[in-house]
């Protein structure tokens, strides 16, 4: 009992170092970016207060990933939630940031309650809070308790990771925080939940039951689909990025779920490979989502709005931000030379290899369907980011602010630049990065990876079980560059006739204004109709008539019903408030009743005295 806090120490094993690297990689550019972002956004003292909070936030996150002792982990975890609450509620004047911060802190707190329950069960059956001793005595935990601990930790960390049924806070909280903070939150904070799952479920408790992995895979797949479908429907650019974080968290958890499945099925190579895919997508997502949020921040700073319907034509006035956003969008939709493509390819390969090694036919089909879901989300993500980039950056500006937008200052561009360079280099040198990741995965799943090979040389990835399968993003990039420059050269050398600049084709009789462009709602209309079984789109059109014959204007209103909010959270909340309202009658104000309560208490206690 008194071993509770005798050895508070921090452990720096490969897993923690990897996550520290992820934190460093995203927070450095964010801090550089913040220098410019806060210049005339907030008053001096508030900017200093925000910087202090940001540094505290980074310190608490690194505390979480390096805590070697359950209580220290818990304290760092709650500190992280507390500080991020202050960051989300930073612009406290706006109504939404109050709502967002309340929902955020409530859901993370409920998640932490589950984590505390899981830790307590661990402490009860392993006798100490130190992770080393717990890992040593973990096999002794009886079967049903292990499942209970797994479920508690899954719900606890799932709430923070934003897995679908528990994702409600993410689209509210991330857009409200200042942009470099939401890039930190999306890039790193939700990853600490993945760290929690890896550290406690895979590393400490150890995986030997397959249905654990099944649950994670199902939730991850659902998160992927729901995340990307909602991302398509949303008009607020930062909300779109928040929903796409849910989708990418789904992809990461697919990788980790597969790793757990292969550990249960005793396939060491596949387990290591899919964990490597998960971790690689984790760092990729941290980098390009951080980049995208920083770009969204610069757009917000110069256009003062986050609604895509009011942006447009920003590529002409903000070329750097547009280029960086394009790079991020390409990476997140998994286009070849960049890092998103490599991690999605590895995830797909993990599914394919699983199918080869799987013995029962049903399992093979499930792997196939998993791969199909992953590909489906990849396709939809591409559509979502074409919309995001196309509507907000291309064509004519739709509002006065968009017209008068100016490029952001150097430090912000520097922040974005660093992340952009990282996105490209992570893609090109993928094979080079997979080697250390394999060592980390081996350490976590405690599998010897000396005889496993993941890449032919520093540039070509090749999974062992697949005969003759190679992927070299560098070579692909080269081939694309070769053909592209070939076409460009042939374009220019043949007596280049000057291209005449004229207005867009307007069927010849009226000149085009920004109203003729496709809007974000218009762009995602086909998806809204295709997924109407899930989105329940609502649409109301109205003709405003001056007289029986002349229609003055036409109003069109559409929105989709947030399924989880409407059919899961609101009934739950209503139930709680109704019962609380029912209890209100206990205190009607009459003193006679109050004395009656005392008398009743005495009688009841005396009658039931035997039971105590």
């Amino acid at each position, binding site marked *: 009992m008194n071993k509770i806090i005798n050895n508070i120490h921090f452990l720096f094993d490969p897993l923690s170092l990897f996550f520290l690297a992820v934190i460093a990689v995203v927070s450095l550019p964010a801090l550089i970016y913040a220098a410019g972002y806060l210049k005339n956004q907030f008053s001096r003292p508030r900017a200093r207060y925000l910087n202090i909070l940001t540094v505290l936030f980074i310190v608490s996150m690194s505390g979480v990933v390096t805590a070697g002792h359950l209580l220290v982990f818990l304290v760092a975890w709650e500190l992280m939630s507390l500080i991020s609450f202050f960051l989300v509620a930073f612009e406290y004047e706006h109504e939404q940031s109050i709502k967002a911060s309340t929902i955020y802190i409530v859901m993370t707190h409920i998640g932490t309650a589950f984590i505390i329950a899981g830790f307590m069960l661990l402490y009860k059956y392993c006798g100490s809070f130190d992770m080393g001793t717990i890992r040593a005595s973990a096999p002794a935990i009886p079967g049903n308790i292990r499942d209970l601990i797994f479920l508690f930790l899954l719900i606890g960390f799932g709430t923070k990771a934003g897995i679908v049924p528990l994702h409600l806070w993410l689209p509210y909280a991330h857009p409200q925080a200042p942009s470099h903070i939401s890039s930190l939150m999306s890039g790193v904070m939700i990853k600490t939940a993945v760290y929690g799952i890896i550290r406690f479920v895979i590393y400490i408790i150890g995986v030997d039951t397959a249905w654990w992995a099944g649950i994670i895979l199902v939730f991850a797949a659902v998160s992927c689909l729901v995340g990307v479908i909602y991302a398509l429907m949303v008009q607020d650019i930062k909300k779109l990025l928040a929903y796409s974080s849910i989708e990418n968290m789904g992809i990461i958890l697919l990788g980790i779920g597969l790793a757990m499945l292969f550990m249960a099925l005793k396939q060491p190579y596949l387990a290591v490979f899919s964990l490597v895919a998960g971790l690689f997508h984790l760092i990729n997502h941290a980098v390009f989502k951080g980049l995208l949020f920083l770009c969204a921040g610069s757009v917000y700073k110069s256009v003062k709005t986050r609604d895509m319907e009011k942006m447009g034509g920003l590529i002409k006035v903000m070329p750097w931000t547009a280029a960086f956003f394009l790079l991020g969008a390409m990476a997140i939709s998994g286009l070849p030379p960049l890092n998103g493509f490599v991690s999605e390819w590895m995830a797909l390969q993990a599914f394919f290899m699983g199918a080869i090694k799987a013995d029962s036919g049903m399992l093979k089909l499930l792997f196939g369907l998993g791969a199909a879901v992953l590909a489906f989300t990849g396709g939809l993500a591409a559509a979502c980011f074409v919309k995001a980039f196309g509507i907000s950056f291309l064509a004519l500006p739709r509002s006065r602010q968009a017209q008068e937008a100016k490029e952001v200052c150097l430090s912000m561009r520097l922040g974005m630049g660093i992340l952009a360079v990282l996105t490209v280099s992570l893609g090109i040198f993928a094979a080079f990065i997979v080697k250390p990741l394999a060592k980390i995965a081996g350490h976590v799943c405690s599998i010897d990876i000396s005889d496993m090979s993941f890449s032919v040389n520093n540039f070509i990835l090749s999974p062992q079980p697949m005969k003759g399968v190679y992927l070299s993003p560098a070579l692909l990039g080269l081939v694309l560059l070769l053909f592209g420059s070939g076409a460009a050269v042939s374009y220019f050398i043949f007596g280049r006739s000057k291209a005449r600049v004229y207005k867009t084709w307007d069927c010849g009789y009226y000149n085009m204004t920004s109203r003729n462009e496709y809007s974000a709602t218009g762009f995602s209309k086909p998806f809204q109709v295709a997924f109407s079984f899930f989105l329940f789109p609502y649409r109301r059109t109205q003709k405003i008539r001056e007289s029986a014959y002349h229609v003055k204007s036409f109003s069109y209103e559409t929105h989709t019903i947030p399924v989880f909010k409407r059919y899961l959270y609101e009934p739950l909340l209503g139930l709680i408030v109704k019962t609380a309202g029912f209890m*209100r009658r206990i*205190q*009607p104000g009459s*003193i*006679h009743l109050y004395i009656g309560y005392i*008398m009743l208490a005495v009688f009841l206690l*005396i009658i039931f005295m035997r039971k105590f």
Partner: protein
Amino acid sequence: METVIILAIIIVAYLMMAAKRIASLVSAFRLQSFLLFVYTLIEAIKQRNTELYIVALLLFVLKVVLIPSILAKIVRKIKVNENLGLFVNVQLSLIIGLGFTYCSWIFSRMVVPQQEPFMAIALTASFTVTLAGMFIMIFRMKALSQTVGLLVMENGIFLLGASIAGGMPFFVEIAIFMDVLISVIILNVFVHRINKLFTHIDAGKLNQLKG
């Protein structure tokens, strides 16, 4: 001899539950205090210790003379209409009184070991009086009835204290008497304030603070 006085105390308790007017309630309280004084006197004579004499004397001065006069002065001063505002009519109150006695009897069988029959009767009497006090506070409308109810409960407990062989340590008795006196004075101060501010002393109407 003591059992007769204890039975008398129980009957006076029923009397109080049946009281409709404040004045009759106060006079019944005065009677009950007097019976209690007699009971303590007998107890003091039986054990022949001087402390009990002083306690009995104090009881007489306080509970028979001083407190009822304060209460009577309040009733006259407030000039509020006499009746107590019963939630429960008299017949039902008496039946409930009998119920209280029966419960107290079962309860004291549970508490007191077999070899102390007299103690069981004393315990029953004190519980009955305490429950009667509580009943008056719950089922009577007026604020004054709540003050008197408190004092009746106090009487019940004092009866229990006196009937224990040793009784309570002397200075604790004194402290409790002083305490009862102060609480009566403070309650009267508040009844005056309620009457001044609310122009009625109907506890039932004091229900603004809800939820």
